[in-house]
């Protein structure tokens, strides 16, 4: 079994030597792969995978492949990539020269929610309305200005009422300092919120053509 890491241009720079990697040529694209991992999902396994993709990202444009994409052998992988070749080439062009930054926003003063069953109907509706309004406000004051500096952006549904924004931004490599400076200014202007910004990530959220 082999495991795919990324789709990139072919030919490309030499592969990094921090893992046993190979590249399968598919009509102008290359699928970078290695031996399949055990399949157990641990933080170490995820970081190891990420480390390989980030090493590739240092000197080439790429589309990261969903974690855990394992195929029988090289021939199967070539067939699978070839089937989607046109979409992949378009998607790769869309991320060329850019990286992904993650921004999550948390309410700094949020106390743990009161025990659910004790909330009355009215309290529940009130909390729900408040979280919707926090979300609208975060989109207006944070997401919109950040989006202006990004080539593209995606919002994911927040996982908790205390998280009004969870977003990903595709940012041109030279624009990263301007983006992080804006995050910093927005943090200063919004002390009630905690802005968590990580990256640069491979463009995991921007792989659709």
């Amino acid at each position, binding site marked *: 079994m082999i495991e795919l890491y990324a789709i990139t241009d072919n030919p490309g720079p030499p592969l990094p030597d921090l893992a046993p990697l190979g590249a399968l040529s598919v009509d102008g694209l290359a699928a970078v792969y290695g031996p399949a991992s055990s399949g157990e999902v641990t933080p*170490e396994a*995820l*970081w190891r995978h990420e480390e390989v993709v980030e090493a590739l990202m240092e000197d080439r444009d790429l589309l990261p492949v969903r974690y855990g994409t394992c195929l029988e052998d090289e021939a199967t*992988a070539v067939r699978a990539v070839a089937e989607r070749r046109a979409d992949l080439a378009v998607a790769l062009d869309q991320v060329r020269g850019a990286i992904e930054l993650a921004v999550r926003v948390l309410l700094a003063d949020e106390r743990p929610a009161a025990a659910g069953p004790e909330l009355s109907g009215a309290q529940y509706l009130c909390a729900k309305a408040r979280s919707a309004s926090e979300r609208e406000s975060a989109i207006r004051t944070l997401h919109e200005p950040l989006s202006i500096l990004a080539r593209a952006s995606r919002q994911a549904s927040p996982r908790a009422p205390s998280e009004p924004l969870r977003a990903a931004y595709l940012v041109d490599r030279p624009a990263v300092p301007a983006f992080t400076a804006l995050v*910093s200014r927005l943090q200063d202007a919004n002390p009630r919120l905690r802005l*968590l910004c990580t990256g640069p990530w491979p463009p995991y959220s921007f792989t659709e053509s």
Partner: protein
Amino acid sequence: MSTAIAEREVALVDLVDRLLGGGVVIAGDITLAVADVDLVYVSLRALVSSVATAKEKELLPRMGDAL
């Protein structure tokens, strides 16, 4: 909780979002379906503070910009 562990945990949430919920989907034997991502969070959160060897994904502020 130390700052380093807190920051690793912040980055791990973003990592899980990306590796398990993003990326190109190519027909194959995907280990996890998107629906399982929340379960992975639960089990990883329990693990994360004991992970000493995981590479620390640095937050941007630590790369030079005061946040």
